């Protein structure tokens, strides 16, 4: 029973239930598409304002329909397939990029009353969650989908039969694969606290209780902020957004993996990129900021409050991604790898072990001070060992280089 966690499916499954499920799918699809339209508009507007410009202001009120106009323009452009490309893979790649992006959104709870009703709302007399599906594997679906999305980028670059996209795809495969490790390890910290893979369970867990009455029980606090930071950084890298946009680095690779794409195939890549941005923000909100949970201020329209809190939290991250893009320069390939492998992965692994030790200590009644002390000592020892290893490898490499070049 993959979908069985939703109370909708606990009742007798009749036509109404199927229709509600279908309605949710259609709605989610529509919401995501509209959200992308506005996300692109929002990004262009905010970046323009950060650069003393206005941004799109001709198409529609405040230029709201600019993205629509761009999409229509791309739709009407000539569809070019390069002569030296692998035609099948070339045509397949955009779909490998966009389908996972849509699927990821299915597991994100975008609303629901977590104060009193356990995160469900009532539609047409049926209790249900405001998310398309709540599979027991939950967050693993997100990790799986983001892994598949790598293929979209990678195959697109490889199949173009051109050099700049090839370089882009080489970078993409290395970058996205290595940052997935850090991403997964910081998700593990959350899973450790929640004890469940289901996204709905995670939100419900964070909605419960809190410290001192006003500090929410969000995972960003419970897991100690470090996994959140790592997830944010690794997530930005996973999205190929600045400062980690080496895959499409305009100045170096002329657009990277999608250099050879035109027309609607390019539009699909574009769509997937912004879909992923929205998805990543939503996943961060779900994992670390309590998703749609929040106080219900006016009774009666309790379902609206969950959506509102979710949107507010989502907006913060969307703005942050745009802000990063407007400000930060790009990493170099090897620096990116250094950051990923030498800092983020060891740090997230160490932090995960630390959290696990704290949890076990709690269960066994150990003195938390001792646990923290031992962890700090262990952490420093591990860090020092790692640094020593890195330094030794580096001196080795340099001496080899010197030998090679005399």
């Amino acid at each position, binding site marked *: 029973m993959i979908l069985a966690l939703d109370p909708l499916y606990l009742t007798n499954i009749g036509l109404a239930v199927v229709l509600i499920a279908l309605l949710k799918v259609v709605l989610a699809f529509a919401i995501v598409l509209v959200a992308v339209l506005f996300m692109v508009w929002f990004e262009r507007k905010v970046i323009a304002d950060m650069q*003393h*410009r*206005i941004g799109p202001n001709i198409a529609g009120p405040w230029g709201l329909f600019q993205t629509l106009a761009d999409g229509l323009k791309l739709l009407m452009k000539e569809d070019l397939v390069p002569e030296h490309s692998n035609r099948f893979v070339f045509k397949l790649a955009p779909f490998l990029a966009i389908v996972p992006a849509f699927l990821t959104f299915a597991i994100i709870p975008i609303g629901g009353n977590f104060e009193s009703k356990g995160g469900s709302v009532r539609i047409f007399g049926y209790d249900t969650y405001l998310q398309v599906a709540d599979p027991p594997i939950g967050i693993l679906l997100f990790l799986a989908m983001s892994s598949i999305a790598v293929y979209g980028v990678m195959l697109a670059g490889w199949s173009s039969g051109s050099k700049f996209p090839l370089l882009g795809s080489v970078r993409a495969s290395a970058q996205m694969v290595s940052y997935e490790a850090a991403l997964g390890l910081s998700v593990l910290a959350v899973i450790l606290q929640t004890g469940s893979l289901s996204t709905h369970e995670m939100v419900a867990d964070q909605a419960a209780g809190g410290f001192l009455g006003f500090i929410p029980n969000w995972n960003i606090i419970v897991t100690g902020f470090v996994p959140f930071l790592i997830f944010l950084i690794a997530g930005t890298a996973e999205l190929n957004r600045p400062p980690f946009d080496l895959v499409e680095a305009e100045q170096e690779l002329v657009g990277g993996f999608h250099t050879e794409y035109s027309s609607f195939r390019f539009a699909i890549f574009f769509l997937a990129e912004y879909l992923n941005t929205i998805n990543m923000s939503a996943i961060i909100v779900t994992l670390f900021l309590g998703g749609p949970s929040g106080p219900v201020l006016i009774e009666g329209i309790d379902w609206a409050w969950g959506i509102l809190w979710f949107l507010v939290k989502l907006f913060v991250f969307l703005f942050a991604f745009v802000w990063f893009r407007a400000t930060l320069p790009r990493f170099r390939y090897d620096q990116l790898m250094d950051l990923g492998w030498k800092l983020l992965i060891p740090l997230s692994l160490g932090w995960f072990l630390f959290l696990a030790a704290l949890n076990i200590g709690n269960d066994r009644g150990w003195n938390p001070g001792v646990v923290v002390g031992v962890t700090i000592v262990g952490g420093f020892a591990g860090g020092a060992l790692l640094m020593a290893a890195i330094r030794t490898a580096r001196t080795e490499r340099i001496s080899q280089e010197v030998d090679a070049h005399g």
Partner: protein
Amino acid sequence: MGLVPGLVKGLGVTGRTLLQTVFPGGFKKPIPAPIRGAQTVQYPHEKDIPAPRARGVIALHEGNCTSCMLCVRECPDWCIYIEAHKEKAPPRRAGGKPRKKNKLDRFDIDFALCMFCGICVEVCPFEALFWSPEYEYSEPRIADLLHDKSRLHEWMATVPEFEDHETGSVVKQKTVPPL
């Protein structure tokens, strides 16, 4: 690295610019007005006014031109075309000999070729050529950029007065002759 990482300070700069653009009124008037806050000029709707000395287009004061051909010779890319013929003009004094006068048949400037260097305006000894800061005369057809003498004469209406000079200058103040 200082106390605050440079990354965060950089984010601060862009964030401040965002606020400056969206709220040009500052704290006193927090009304979003990015059109006023932006530094860009929304060209077809609003227009930048160039400096009076700006070299936009060359205007011809036809009455002053004596077809002496100096501008044609001095033009670095030879984009001025003058044709003239001699005409008898009535004598200055009664009973004098009729004068010979150059009558301008053709005075064309090909703005597709022109480099906007201003040498022709400078060498003209009879104050027949002037710069106008007007800039809106692009054409869909390149041949239409060849302005004939009547078109060049129309630009005279847009020629601004010469500006005063900064203190300490002894350069002679020039004036635009009346049409």
